[in-house]
């Protein structure tokens, strides 16, 4: 596709010399064929003429009000503005809303015992109803299972949930395991990221909280299995995103001596 116009073959036109005095002239734009066209131009019956456009005359450059390359400049300026605008919109999105949630009082209220699940549910509902529910349901069953393993002092209700959750948990665990086995490449990157993020710090902090708080934090963590959780949402879409929960679980299982083996 190296020619100047999309009809890639040159148009060879047979043209009567009497038709149009101007078109008779050797208006060849391609120097390669200059000689050929000159020799053929001597014959008055027809002319080989290479035209890039239709039958009309060549484009006239007289009387241009704006600069010749104004469309070119306008196009590239528009493109640059679009890309920069997109970048700024994305960075603005990263800055909105964050500082106020760091207030410990509001955080405590958010993680009140009874309202833990409700709170998270509410957030999910208000933000993304369509896609987050299946995720939430699946992850909640998984984490109910996990939390039941952790909190051994729970009553019958939990034991029942545990039995129910085991099946879901096993299936989900299997899914995570498969994810893990299949995209193990993301693991390395993600583990580095996690180290940088000081996950250990956060996990220790989480672990040291009260039982209810822990339950709530686990739930909130595990309700977000697909994001580059733990402060590295950078490399979107890579395997990292699938691996976050399995790594968190692994670390927590090591620290808590959980029964099930994520590996």
């Amino acid at each position, binding site marked *: *596709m190296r*020619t*100047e*116009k*999309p*009809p*890639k*073959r040159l148009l060879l036109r047979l043209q009567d010399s009497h038709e149009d*005095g101007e078109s008779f*002239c050797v*208006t*060849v*734009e391609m120097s*390669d064929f200059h000689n050929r066209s000159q020799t053929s131009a001597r014959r008055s019956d027809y002319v080989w003429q290479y035209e890039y456009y239709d039958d*009309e005359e060549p*484009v*006239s*450059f007289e009387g241009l009000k*704006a600069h*010749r*390359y104004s*469309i*070119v400049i306008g*196009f590239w300026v528009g493109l640059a503005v679009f*890309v920069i605008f*997109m*970048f700024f919109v994305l960075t603005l*999105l*990263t800055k909105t*809303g*964050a*500082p106020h*949630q*760091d207030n*410990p009082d509001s955080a405590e209220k958010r993680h009140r015992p009874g309202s833990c699940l409700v709170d998270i549910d509410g957030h999910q509902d208000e*933000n993304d109803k369509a*896609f987050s529910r299946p*995720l939430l349901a*699946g992850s909640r069953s998984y984490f109910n299972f996990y939390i039941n393993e952790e909190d051994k002092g729970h009553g019958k209700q939990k034991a029942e949930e545990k039995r129910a959750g085991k099946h879901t948990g096993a299936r989900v665990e299997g899914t995570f395991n498969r*994810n893990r086995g299949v*995209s193990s*490449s*993301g*693991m390395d990157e993600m583990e580095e990221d996690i180290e940088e993020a*000081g996950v250990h*710090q*956060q996990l220790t*902090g989480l672990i040291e*909280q009260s039982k209810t708080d822990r339950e709530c934090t686990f739930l909130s963590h595990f309700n*977000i299995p*697909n994001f*580059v*959780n*733990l*402060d*590295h*949402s*950078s490399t*979107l*879409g890579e395997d990292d995103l699938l691996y976050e929960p399995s790594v968190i679980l692994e670390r927590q299982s090591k620290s808590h001596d959980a029964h099930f083996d994520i590996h």
Partner: protein
Amino acid sequence: MNGSILNQSDCPEVVVPNPVFFTIGAVSFAENFLVVVAVIRNRNLHSPMYCFICSLAAFHTIASLTKTLENFMIVFADVGHLNKKGSSETTLDDAIDSLLCMSFLGSFFSILAIAVDRYITIFHALQYHNIMTMQRTGAILGIIWTVCGGLGVLMILFFDFKLIMICFVILFFISLVIICSLYVYMFMLARIHARKIAALPVGGRNNHHQQRWGSNMRGAQTITILFGTLVVCWSPFFFHLVIIMVCPMNPYCECYRSLFQLHVALLTSHALFDPAIYAFRIAELRHTLRKMLLCSDWKLCS
């Protein structure tokens, strides 16, 4: 005789020297071919996501190969070894153009498939392995290759019809919009969830906040680079097609058209940037490439 013969228009065609095309072609061929080989050789990379990346690299390999071949043909024709009007040359030219068209379309569809795959990874993570099985991936890739091959042939055969160009341009814009919205959606959801985690009462909150802001910035950068490269490399060429249809005789439009070779060079350089954006960011693939390139014997280095 017309005195003001336009021997040369006021906007002379900007010529990109052949060595530039050859360099772009050679480097992008090497990169993409290595990616294809790495994905095929490493069993860990036999998963849907890597299959799409491999398909993208394969399309780019074909594109760079055919573009280099076309450049050779043009060089030979300019020197005089080839007859530009010969039937075999035009048939070969047609074949090369349809392969180019197929590979450009294919790379675009592969990028779309990668975006959809990432979307499913994030929003349907628990059902991901049921939704995106290897059989389905194979079927999707088969469909992409067949459709692109067919469309490539059709577009070159019926290139003179404006309808083809219109369809091409509309397809391009729709795909761009889909890709952009998928990635922005993923980004926004990542931000929302990162914010939720930030709400946890954990010590070292300032550090936390800084890290979160830093990671979200990186997410914004990633998306901008990914989408920005796509738009910057592809849209000049498509704008060229639009301009041909809309204003063939306008002098301003002609000045834009004079940059055709530059736009094609940009389009082929997209094959140069894609591996860096998609493939080389995956640690496992980098590891495989290192093993392949630095170790002569595969078994020794494992």
